[in-house]
């Protein structure tokens, strides 16, 4: 409907209504999965516990992104940065992006998952180059080339799993369940090769080192709401695909191969991101490196296994909510200061008191300080690995300390530094405050209370993955 509507406001309202419907729908599906174990009304849809969690994350982040996008783009339009046509294109591409992620997460077939993950790449390319400047086009080109190559390798890995099937079996749609059932027929060496390609391919979408180079550029050049979607919604979708393949590979090869690979990619991502954050000059790039670091923590948790799996799932949820909040507040900062450079932003607590406070709270939460949920998930991840992977756990602790130091020095300077007299304080739009505030409140509530149906989903996902 947003394609046919010419009116900007009407388009935004349609998108918002659609996101509300999606949110209600996914909560309903999640409750059905919690009660019956899975949801598959049609042959091409299969939603298990982890898929339901991922779909809820897409719906929540999608709703808040839509709610934030309207006032954000409205401000940019008033400043003359963009026009109505570009806003219309934004909402069309946003809807395609959300739809592609939903279908990818809910699909019963790994090939449909791949097709719609590729579609998510294509639908976001123009969102990254949104401002039509040389730097945004470069970022979008880099994103397109690296992610397309990665996803093609992921597709190759996906096809290799089909070697377990004879030509006649493969004539129809091969589903995740069919792959899992045939996994024991797979040649273990072939399964290992397939998982390597899948991890490289979908790991590119996740932003794992060394396939991460597109992330800081993309996050820094795309509009703030899109950065929130990349970090909050796309990461869980890519992670879901990797974990489904991990399960199939574990049946063919035993668990140690995939676990070791996840640990290797995880620790590399954490360490590289930690060091990269020390020399960053742009606060949106800082958030990009932070996303790489958290993607590393999540896969590390799955690699360690045991309580690490529970920690990783909870970490995914908290990270999606808090990182999206950080992107929204960074968008408010950009609107006020017209600069993404850290040195140009000072005294947020005076200039934008509410945004500054929310930015600071999100920073504290995302870097793993108590009493927020991420503190507990990081502790649990480290303790999961401490027994069998002591040196890696020590390296994680040191890296996280480095991340905190890096993040801390920038955020403190931005929030508490001497305000620039040229920047007038105040003028905070309440509609730009509500989305990040809503996400932070959700993250705080979930740190202390998890609704029963969500608890069931998480417990089921821990057992399965």
């Amino acid at each position, binding site marked *: 409907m947003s394609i046919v509507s010419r009116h900007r406001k009407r388009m935004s309202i349609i998108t918002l209504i659609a996101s509300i419907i999606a949110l209600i729908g996914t909560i309903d599906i999640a409750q059905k999965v919690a009660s019956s174990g899975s949801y598959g009304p049609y042959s091409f849809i299969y939603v298990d516990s982890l898929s339901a969690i991922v779909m809820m994350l897409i719906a929540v982040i999608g709703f808040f992104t839509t709610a934030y996008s309207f006032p954000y783009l409205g401000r940019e339009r008033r400043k003359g940065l963009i026009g109505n046509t570009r806003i219309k294109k934004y909402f069309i591409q946003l809807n395609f992006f959300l739809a592609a992620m939903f279908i990818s997460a809910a699909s019963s*077939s790994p*090939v*449909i998952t791949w*097709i719609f993950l*590729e*579609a998510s790449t*294509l639908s976001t*390319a*123009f969102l990254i*180059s949104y401002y*039509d*400047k*040389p*730097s945004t*086009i*470069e*970022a*979008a*080109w*880099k994103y*397109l*080339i690296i992610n*397309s*190559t990665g996803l*093609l390798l992921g*597709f*190759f890995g996906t*096809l*290799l799993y*089909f*070697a377990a099937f004879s*030509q006649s079996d*493969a*004539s*129809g*749609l*091969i589903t995740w369940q069919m792959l899992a059932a045939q996994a024991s027929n797979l*040649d273990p*060496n*072939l399964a*290992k*090769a397939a998982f390597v390609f899948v991890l490289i391919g979908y790991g590119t979408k996740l932003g794992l080192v060394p396939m991460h180079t597109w992330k800081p*550029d993309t996050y820094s*050049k795309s509009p703030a709401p899109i950065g929130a979607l990349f970090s909050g919604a796309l990461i869980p979708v890519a992670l879901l695909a990797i974990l489904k393949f991990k399960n199939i590979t574990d049946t063919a090869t035993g668990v140690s191969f995939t676990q070791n690979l996840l640990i290797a990619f995880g620790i590399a991502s954490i360490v590289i991101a930690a060091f990269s954050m020390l*020399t*960053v*000059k*742009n606060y949106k*790039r800082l958030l990009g490196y932070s996303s790489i670091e958290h993607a590393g923590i999540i896969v590390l948790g799955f690699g360690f296994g045991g309580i690490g799996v529970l920690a990783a799932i909870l970490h995914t949820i908290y990270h999606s909510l808090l990182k999206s909040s950080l992107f929204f507040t960074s968008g408010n900062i950009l609107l006020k200061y017209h600069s993404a450079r850290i040195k140009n932003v000072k005294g947020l607590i005076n200039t934008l008191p509410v945004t500054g406070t929310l930015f600071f709270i999100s920073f504290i939460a995302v870097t793993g300080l108590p009493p927020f949920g991420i503190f507990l998930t990081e502790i649990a991840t480290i303790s999961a690995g401490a027994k069998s992977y002591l040196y890696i756990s020590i390296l994680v602790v040191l890296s996280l300390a480095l991340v905190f130091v890096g993040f801390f020095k920038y955020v403190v300077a931005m929030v508490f530094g001497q305000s620039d007299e040229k920047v007038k304080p105040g003028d905070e739009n309440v509609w730009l405050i509500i989305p990040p505030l809503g996400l932070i409140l959700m993250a705080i509530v979930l740190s202390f209370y998890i609704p029963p149906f969500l608890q069931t989903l998480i417990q089921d996902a821990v057992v399965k993955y």
Partner: protein
Amino acid sequence: MNDTLIQTVIPVFFLTTVAMHTIKKNQNIAILYSLQSLVIAALLASVFIENGTFFLLLITMATLIVKVILAPGFFIRLVALHKLRFAASSYANLPLTLVIISLITAMASSGIFESLTNIVATRHTYLALALSSMLISIFLMVNRKGALSQIIGILSLENSIVLFAILAGLEQSAALQFGILFDISIWIFIAFSFVTMIYRHLGSEDVTNMRSLQD
């Protein structure tokens, strides 16, 4: 699948992938891609003749239209529009490029990828060539400085993967082949839009001119 056909077309496919590294004119690279896609269409046609499935015929026709005719045609039109006759240079010179390609080919045929090339033991050599083509396509993206070469590299990689899948009997249902073809069509459209934008801003397709991304 007809063994004579395989013996004829697979070396052609491999050689077109290698030749993409040596050709200087963008138009000729597009023609090589068209030839590569023709090989894929020929193999799909061979599978259709064996199975007689109507959807396979549609897939073959769609491959012919999208990959053999439309995509290269679009590419050549873009080259003419922006007068991009000659491809941007490469990082490695020609002798070094050929040495690297030889190493890649040797590696693909070695024991490292045995589990992949022995999926169908009787087609080990051809699977190795398909795998080499994949890696050589990735090398094309890395080695060449032009945005157009990077596009062709990705399309060549996709062709190589499809070739591998056909030879290894990993072919999926025709409906999904349609989905993949549709995806590739959209990708081609978007990539070419970006090349136009790149040329508009930088006046060149040379990606080494892209230096606006600063911290």
